[in-house]
């Protein structure tokens, strides 16, 4: 194992992406992910990749569309309103079945919002802001190390599924520091290899066949068939890409559901409640789409209440309620606008809620 180094989230995202096979990065500056764009501007060319600062997020995603169509392992990153601008492109890329890795270092919204951390892009990334029937697998790391591990695998995952992969890391994870271990760099895919490994790519005339990349399908029957084919893939993804972590849910009185930064605070709250003799557990969705419904089947049937803790107005509640399926009451503990609650605040609010379910 290589040595521990201290890294800031945004730098670590870049380093992990490069080590995971990223060869193209297209970006446009936005807080709180600027250090990543800066890192890539410095590192990509040094390490055999290409860096483009686009003139906008719209340009970024469409340049990335072109790179992905040519078979390049491409990475785009932004923060909430910037990711909003990319939604049209993401819909096109999903329809064209191209691999791409996108990172959202999210902040407060709606609109231009603020620059402090937020999780109010849950609906944006899990439901998709673009048009049409499509899905993007979304992973929400709760630490810098987990972000590294997810990003390192994301490029091969995107290639395998021929679909964008989204990583939702809130601003806190982008800006905080953490000791991490970096994985060994993967060998980059050469242009000759692209022609062999990605026969669908527009990789030139040498490969001897014609590839077409498009999202336009004027014939309704043709489009319906295409969407059904996409959904066969999504059904498969729902089985294979579910990822979550759970802690002490089998005998819990109260089960928290929380992702990203909030899950770390909740972990501390669970220990605080344990000191009071209250058994609390945590389901931490790592894949937000597909949502880890299966985790809820392991919850103690005697659990009094499930609490969704989020940095938004309760966007994940819809998925939590669907997963709970009426077996337990579902309540919300939240802050928004860029405010991160303290462990004490969540602890006190949880105790108050628990008091209602004696």
């Amino acid at each position: 194992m290589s040595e521990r180094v201290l890294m800031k989230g945004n730098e670590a995202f870049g380093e992990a992406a490069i080590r995971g096979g990223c060869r193209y990065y297209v970006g446009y500056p936005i807080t709180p992910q600027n250090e990543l764009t800066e890192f890539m501007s410095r590192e990509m060319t040094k390490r055999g990749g290409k860096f483009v600062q686009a003139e906008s997020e719209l340009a970024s995603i469409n340049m990335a569309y072109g790179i992905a169509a040519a078979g390049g392992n491409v990475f785009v990153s932004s923060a909430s309103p910037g990711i909003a601008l990319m939604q049209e492109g993401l819909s096109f890329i999903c329809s064209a079945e191209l691999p791409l890795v996108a990172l959202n270092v999210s902040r407060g919204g709606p609109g231009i919002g603020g620059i402090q951390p937020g999780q109010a892009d849950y609906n944006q990334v899990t439901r998709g802001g673009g048009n049409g029937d499509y899905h993007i697998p979304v992973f929400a790391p709760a630490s810098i190390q987990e972000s590294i591990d997810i990003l390192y695998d994301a490029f091969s995952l995107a290639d395998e599924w021929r679909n964008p992969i989204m990583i939702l890391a809130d601003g806190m994870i982008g800006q905080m520091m953490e000791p991490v271990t970096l994985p060994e760099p993967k060998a980059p895919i050469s242009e000759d290899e692209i022609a062999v490994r990605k026969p669908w790519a527009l990789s030139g005339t040498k490969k001897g066949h014609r590839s077409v990349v498009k999202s336009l399908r004027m014939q309704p029957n043709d489009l319906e068939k295409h969407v059904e084919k996409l959904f066969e893939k999504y059904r498969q993804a729902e089985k294979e890409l579910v990822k979550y972590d759970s802690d002490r849910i089998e005998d819990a009185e109260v089960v928290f559901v929380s992702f990203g930064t909030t899950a770390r605070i909740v972990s501390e709250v669970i220990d605080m409640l344990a000191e009071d003799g209250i058994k609390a557990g945590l389901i931490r969705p790592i894949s937000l789409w597909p949502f880890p419904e299966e985790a809820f089947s392991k919850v103690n049937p005697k659990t009094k209440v499930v609490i969704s803790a989020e940095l938004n107005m309760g966007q994940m509640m819809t998925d939590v309620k669907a997963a709970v399926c009426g077996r337990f009451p579902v309540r919300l503990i939240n802050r928004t606008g860029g405010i991160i609650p303290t462990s004490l605040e969540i602890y006190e609010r949880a105790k108050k809620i628990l008091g209602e379910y004696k």
Partner: protein
Amino acid sequence: MNLAMDKRIVAVVGHFGSGKTEFCINYALERAKLYKKSALIDLDIANPYFRSREKRSLLESAGIRVFGSFYQSEITAELPALTANARFPLEDKNYAVTIDVGGDASGSMILIQFFKYFIEGDYELLCVINKNRPETSSIEGALSHIYRIEKETGLKITGLINNTHLLRETRVDDIIQGYQFCQELSKELRIPIRFSCCPVLLYEDLCKKDINEAMKDGILPVALHMRETWLDKKP
């Protein structure tokens, strides 16, 4: 550790994430015990989070006035601008001033406008070194950071701060290795190592180690004011 002889103005630069802000807060709090008037100027206009101005109430309760790129209670705005009153404690020679400068050469550029206050004998420009940050883990890497900061600001760095740590994973040996690393830099640059930061919990263990007097004299026990405990909670 004796801070009584420290220069009136102590400006702190370094690689982003090297720990300038934690050093500045701990140092300013320690220093405030010796002076009637003390101030911290937060010149970090590059970082959006973890800025010393967020600890304004803690600092003010210790008698430290806080200045920087914020207006009244607005501390989260991302304004690449400074309020004019940031100059006040520099003008008033009764103030002991700690300056938390932004990261890297680009972040330290902001110092240029305060050039006239950096009078020889009245200031120190200290550079924070954390050997566990990838870009300053080699002598060449650390030197190149220092040279870039000097070139950008036109000021000579006068001392080093060994802040080699891995947050709550820090071991006493990390601090000692960081000191040895800084000794090499110190020899190359002909400037002293002014401080070695040590987490409060490790202070006694470090003092028991076989370390030289110069290192011992410069140990600054640091509490992690900027770091909420849940940030080190394993998810």
